[in-house]
């Protein structure tokens, strides 16, 4: 069992990435490689659809941490959607992402980002 990485649509600066299979000591390097050009491309945030990810270990969590660190510099986030029980358990134990950045659907994650962006834009207007 391996990891399949599907790079999906990008809208409003958020890149959708779908992970299928296992994110572990064997496959985390594939994710790092796939995310590197995305993280270098001034993307604001990432949305990870994990509906078909059925196993993660600390090696996989480290890859997600690296992405979170890379995006945090400009206020970007890694939002995760549709966690299977094993993924949810591991995320709970290591607090892999803040609870309010875990979503039950990709649409909810997108809506959260839209609201975040609107807040940023409005904030800039108020400051002017």
């Amino acid at each position, binding site marked *: 069992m391996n990891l399949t990485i599907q790079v999906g649509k990008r809208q409003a600066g958020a890149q959708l990435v779908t992970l299928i299979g296992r994110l*572990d*000591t*064997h496959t985390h390097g594939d994710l790092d490689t796939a995310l590197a050009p995305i993280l270098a491309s001034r993307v604001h945030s990432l949305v990870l659809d994990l509906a078909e990810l059925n*196993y993660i*270990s*600390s*090696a996989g*969590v*480290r890859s997600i*941490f*690296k992405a*979170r*660190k890379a995006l*945090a*510099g400009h206020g970007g986030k890694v939002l995760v959607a549709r966690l299977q*029980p*094993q993924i949810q358990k*591991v995320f709970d*134990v*290591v*607090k892999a992402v803040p609870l309010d950045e875990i979503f039950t659907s990709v649409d909810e994650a997108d809506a959260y980002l839209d609201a975040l962006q609107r807040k940023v834009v409005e904030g800039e207007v108020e400051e002017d």
Partner: protein
Amino acid sequence: MQMRLVMPDDRTRLRELDNGLVTALSAGGVAFDVIADVLLIAEEIVCNAIDHGFSEHRPHEIIVSVEQRAEQVAIEFRDDGIAFNPLDRPAPNLDADIGDRPIGGLGVHLVRELADEVSYARDATHNVLRVVLHKSTQEPLE
């Protein structure tokens, strides 16, 4: 069940270990999600042993033994790497801001949290890590 894995410096044989554990634990009536926890624990322990204990340029071995009792399953990981006690590692700060959070230390934290008991001993030339889990997911009645 006992499996002896001779490890050069790669992790490819972890999958054989996974298969062996699934077969042995399913036959022993261990709950599905407990088996999932065991596979995660096995990956974390074996990777830690390879990363921290297998520094010399020779093949190493990890012997994994599974002992099943009525309510519990005990798994022993015995490797011939340099002395390394992963339990010495301080718990990671899970509440730090992402910018300040170290990316290491999560594997051992997962092992501690998922296992009911975990202990380390140095037995002459071997590291011995022993992990115990309840076979069912329900907490035993007190």
